[in-house]
């Protein structure tokens, strides 16, 4: 198996674990953790493709940097939203947060 396929399989494992966690977790924070796993897999696949194929090296690494920045922005915003939800409904359980306007 080529190194490229090995790295892509590792990224794929992260995606699979992230999807599994996103659907099986009940708390919003647990779902956030799963989303971070998936974003990490995306970054790993991007860098692997940039380093081991004729694709532009700078572009792949830059894309991963942007993914990291987006992940940081997303985590900030989700933290605020989870706090608001926990304050308003007293829980961050996604099964109980089913109303659009409560």
């Amino acid at each position: 198996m080529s190194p490229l396929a090995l790295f892509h399989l590792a990224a794929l494992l992260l995606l699979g674990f992230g999807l599994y966690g996103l659907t099986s977790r009940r708390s919003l924070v647990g779902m956030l953790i799963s989303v971070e796993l998936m974003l990490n897999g995306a970054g790993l696949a991007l860098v692997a493709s940039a380093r081991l194929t004729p694709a532009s090296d700078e572009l792949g690494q830059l894309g991963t940097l942007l993914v990291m920045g987006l992940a940081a922005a997303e985590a900030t915003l989700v933290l605020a939203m989870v706090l608001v939800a926990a304050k308003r409904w007293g829980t961050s359980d996604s099964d109980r947060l089913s109303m659009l306007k409560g």
Partner: protein
Amino acid sequence: MEQLAYAAYGLYLVLILTGAWVAVRCRNLVRALLGLIMTLFGVAGMYFLMAAPFMALMQILIYVGAVSVLIFFAIMLTRTSGGQAGEEDGGARPALRTVLALLSGLLPAAILAVVILTKASQSLPLKPEMPLGRLGQFLTGPYVLAFELISVVLLAAMAGAVVLGFERRKSA
């Protein structure tokens, strides 16, 4: 030398697998966060293995340094109905939910794995390590718009988080 690289890959893969398993399965959210951090270190090791040390350091700096601290705050500031911070609600997970979640995780992964294993392009020998200056030139040259946009997104996210936080205090 090549055997050594494969051994390092195996070590990082074990780190990633164990961490991801803990991150998605552990009932205690603090332990799940520790699993996530373990996975992040494993991915950073893989970046080092691909001779992209800047990416590895950024991974440790941004993810382990910033994002996981944010998640830790989120865990500590929310409580379940039992009044316990960091514990996920509910007793035993329903079996149906686990099966469906497994399906939703495995199905896309299996399809993509088939694509990777059958359509894999030949991987080149590793390119020489890219000097950091080239990345900077790229970022301030042709991709300056993406750079500015990500700054605006970060600013908007932070301003939004602050606004949400204040609103919470007002309505409480």
